[in-house]
């Protein structure tokens, strides 16, 4: 079958970086091409070139056999190329119809928006591809999985037949992922061609027709899914053998370090997002909190670390009551926090590494005498930590913002682990990181556990929860659905719990 899209020798340089180096890829008509690569491998650059946001320095683009020049998203759309971004480009306070027609509004009587016409068209698209959605619903009321459908409808509404899906499964539950895969299959049957960007190895093998792997801006190779194993793909991506399974001993939990009882928390918009949560974390164990994003996990962690006030209930750390304590009181009680949003909470991006390394301890000996900061210990502390935690940086004086995501996260891990701690709260500790960094950070977390620290890991990646946890709590709509023993937990059960369904209860009903 013919190649519907072909890139030949695409090269793109940024000052000091070769983002894409003579990359060739080909998308066959009616097939799924998976583009696999770590962060910084050049996937996004390549897709932005394809979508007309960047101009390549060298190379040719062929669409349906004809060489084309793409100077902007409008050109791309005209050529039938549509992109579903990882971060949805939707306006929450508008309806599905309004979002879909945004930029290509249907007008009636020369002045008014023709919502009905668009709604009708959305209905047709929905039926044709199995993308059920209420055209008049407001985006903010829709679950993430449905919002993604709206994004896909948007692309189809502009009659794209080459779809680029950028990390489409990052925000979905396992069930929603299956739903997405069904939709993708329908699209393929209808003759669409799809580029699927991801770093999740198993998905690639499950769905792709062709796999291309990028590393450091270069094409490492193409492989057929039938020949691929997760291990093989990971090695191609990283360039060395990586362990995909976290090697860990059986946990030896001791007494509880953190006891949470009947906790209620409101989010910043005053919605009650944590509703009566109780659990405990014991020394020497990892308690994983699974759940689809936005089910109260973020607010739970904020309350535990003092970033949000507690509305009701208690938090007890080693006998000390810490609900509504200040962040500093909580830090000083021996709590380390790897925050969910490392650039918002975890780091000051335009401060140098050495200052970020003492962000929580700058006022203590030896980093300060009285009010006077002591540069020598601050510098030597940073030198030691970047060595110990393998932070790749030219020196400790560069701003943290210049580091890659993985190295930024290592700075946070180094800082938090260098204090004496009894409890580690790690929220989405490896979000957006590459396989190599994930391996490293997982090992560090398990090391802390084995030293006798209590660990609370919050993650929306089930693989991560399963890899790290000794017990797993599943959150749904602000409540803990159940706490499972990690050894007995299956992905299916967890997925159902994440969707608010109790597997045992439903099986009884059957």
């Amino acid at each position, binding site marked *: 079958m013919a190649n519907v899209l072909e890139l030949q020798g695409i090269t793109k340089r940024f*000052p000091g970086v070769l983002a894409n180096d003579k990359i060739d890829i080909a998308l066959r008509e009616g097939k799924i091409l998976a583009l696999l690569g770590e962060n910084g491998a050049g996937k996004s650059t390549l897709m932005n070139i394809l979508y007309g946001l960047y101009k390549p320095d060298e190379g040719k683009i062929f669409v349906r056999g004809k060489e084309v020049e793409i100077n902007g998203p409008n050109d791309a759309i005209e050529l039938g190329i549509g992109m579903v971004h990882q971060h949805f480009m939707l306006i929450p306070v508008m309806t599905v119809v309004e979002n879909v027609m945004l930029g290509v509004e249907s007008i009636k009587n020369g002045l008014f928006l023709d919502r009905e016409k668009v709604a009708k068209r959305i209905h047709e698209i929905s039926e044709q591809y199995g993308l059920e959605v209420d055209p008049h619903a407001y985006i903010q009321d829709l679950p993430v999985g449905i919002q993604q459908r709206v994004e896909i409808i948007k692309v189809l509404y502009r009659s794209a037949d080459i779809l680029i899906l950028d990390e489409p499964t990052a925000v979905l539950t396992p069930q929603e992922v299956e739903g997405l895969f069904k939709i993708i299959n329908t699209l393929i049957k209808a003759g669409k061609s799809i580029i699927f960007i991801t770093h999740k190895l198993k998905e690639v093998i499950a769905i792709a027709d062709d796999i291309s792997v990028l590393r450091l801006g270069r094409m490492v190779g193409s492989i057929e899914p039938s020949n691929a194993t997760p291990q093989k793909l990971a090695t191609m991506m990283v360039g060395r053998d990586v362990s995909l399974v976290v090697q860990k001993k059986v946990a030896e939990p001791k007494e509880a370090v953190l006891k949470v009882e009947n906790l209620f928390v409101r989010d910043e918009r005053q919605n009650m997002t944590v509703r009566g949560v109780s659990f405990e974390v014991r020394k020497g164990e990892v308690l994983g909190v699974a759940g689809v994003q936005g089910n109260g996990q973020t607010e739970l962690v904020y309350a535990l*670390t003092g*970033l949000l006030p507690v509305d009701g209930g208690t938090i007890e750390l080693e006998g000390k009551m810490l609900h509504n304590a*200040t*962040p*500093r*009181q*909580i*830090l*000083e009680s021996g709590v380390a*926090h790897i*925050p969910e949003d490392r650039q*918002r*909470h*975890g*780091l*000051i*991006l*335009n*401060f140098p590494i050495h*200052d970020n390394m003492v*962000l*929580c301890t*700058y*006022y203590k000996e030896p980093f*300060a005498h009285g*009010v*006077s*900061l002591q540069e020598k210990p601050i510098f030597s502390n940073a030198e030691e930590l970047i060595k110990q935690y393998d932070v790749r940086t030219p*020196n400790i*004086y560069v*701003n943290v913002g*210049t580091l890659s995501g993985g190295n930024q996260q290592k700075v946070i891990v180094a800082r938090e682990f260098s204090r004496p701690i009894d409890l580690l709260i790690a929220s989405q500790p490896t979000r957006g990181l590459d396989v190599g960094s994930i391996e490293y950070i997982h090992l560090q977390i398990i090391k802390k556990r084995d030293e006798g620290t209590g660990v609370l890991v919050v993650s929306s990646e089930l693989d991560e929860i399963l890899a790290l946890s000794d017990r797993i709590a599943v959150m749904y709509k602000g409540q803990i659905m159940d706490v499972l023993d990690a050894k007995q937990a299956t992905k299916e059960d967890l997925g159902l719990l994440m969707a608010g369904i109790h597997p045992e209860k439903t099986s009884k009903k059957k």
Partner: protein
Amino acid sequence: MSEKASKEKKEQTEKQKEQSSLRQALLVPVLAVLSGLILGGVVMALSGSNPFQAYAALFAGSFGSPSVIIAGMQTYFATGDNNALVRSLYPFTESLVTATPYIFTGLAVAIGFRAGLFNIGAEGQVFIGALCSAFIGYSIKGLPMIIHLPLALLAGAAGGAFWGMIPGYLKARFGAHEVVNTIMMNWIAFRLSDWLLKGPMQASNFRPVTPNVQASAELPRFFEDPLRFNLGFFLALLFAYLVYWFLFKTTLGFEIRSVGANPDAAKYAGMSIVKNIVLVMSLAGALAGLGGGAQVLGVDHWVGQGFSSGYGFDAIAIALLGKSHPFGVVLAALLFGFLRSGATNMQSMAGIPVDIISIIQGLVIVFVAAPAIIRWLYRIKSIKVEETVLTRGWGK
């Protein structure tokens, strides 16, 4: 051996890095000033004046005329009479006198910027500081200078600090935006000073001015009249250094810069946003108040209506031009001092209105605020320079 070598190498790269970052930091402001002067010259030429003549007059008015200085020196060496020499230094010292309040108020705005706060209230803080210093200066009599002068300065700082603290507290406690509140505090300060100068603090019934301060509260001058150059200038330099030390070498400064650069991370790290906002606004007010105090005690010796000619507003431009760094503020304040002081001469000598200086200042600000223009004009490759967060939007 190898360790030593690597250490040396590290120190060397560190030095190089420092030098290049210093060059980077200076590049845009220097080019901005240059472009402002050139474009100002174009404006003068378009309006029918001779820019070269104008700039020569500006130079003579701000630095002094070299020939007059040399003549003064010759007289001094020949006869021992220093009168002519001292007079020849008048333009230069007067520029430094003009720069003094700019340094103080520039620091007051810059320290706010460092914490992500936009202190538009420096003008009002200057007024309150000046009135407080003047009051202590004229009302207390018979104190020795060593007590009276510091007390009068302290009063100015305290008054300014109080005036800055109010919007700081309103922001920290109620989230009221500091831009609105500092502007309102300005108006309160203006009207309050009008009332004080026509009432409780009025010297005589004729003019709305305060009595002269006691000699024991005056900042000592270094030369005889008409040279007004006084200790205030060195006090300003000292405070610039103190602000530098405070911001970059103390834990409190670390907190302030953290709150300014990323308040969420500062909160995460256990810093109190509320405490730091109130602290910074009080410090900013104290600096501006000191500026007002130094102007009264060193230069004017009394306060009248329209006492400040916009020191607190020009300060915003100075802080921007100085990239919110205390040393940058000193340089920018000197530039403004020389421009303002020389402008008068330019008007009398070359017949060019003082307002042309405002145009030049305005151009410089635009270039500094939009470095992309300068980069484009001079074809400078865009290198990612650390940008200080100036303020955040209305929402947070």
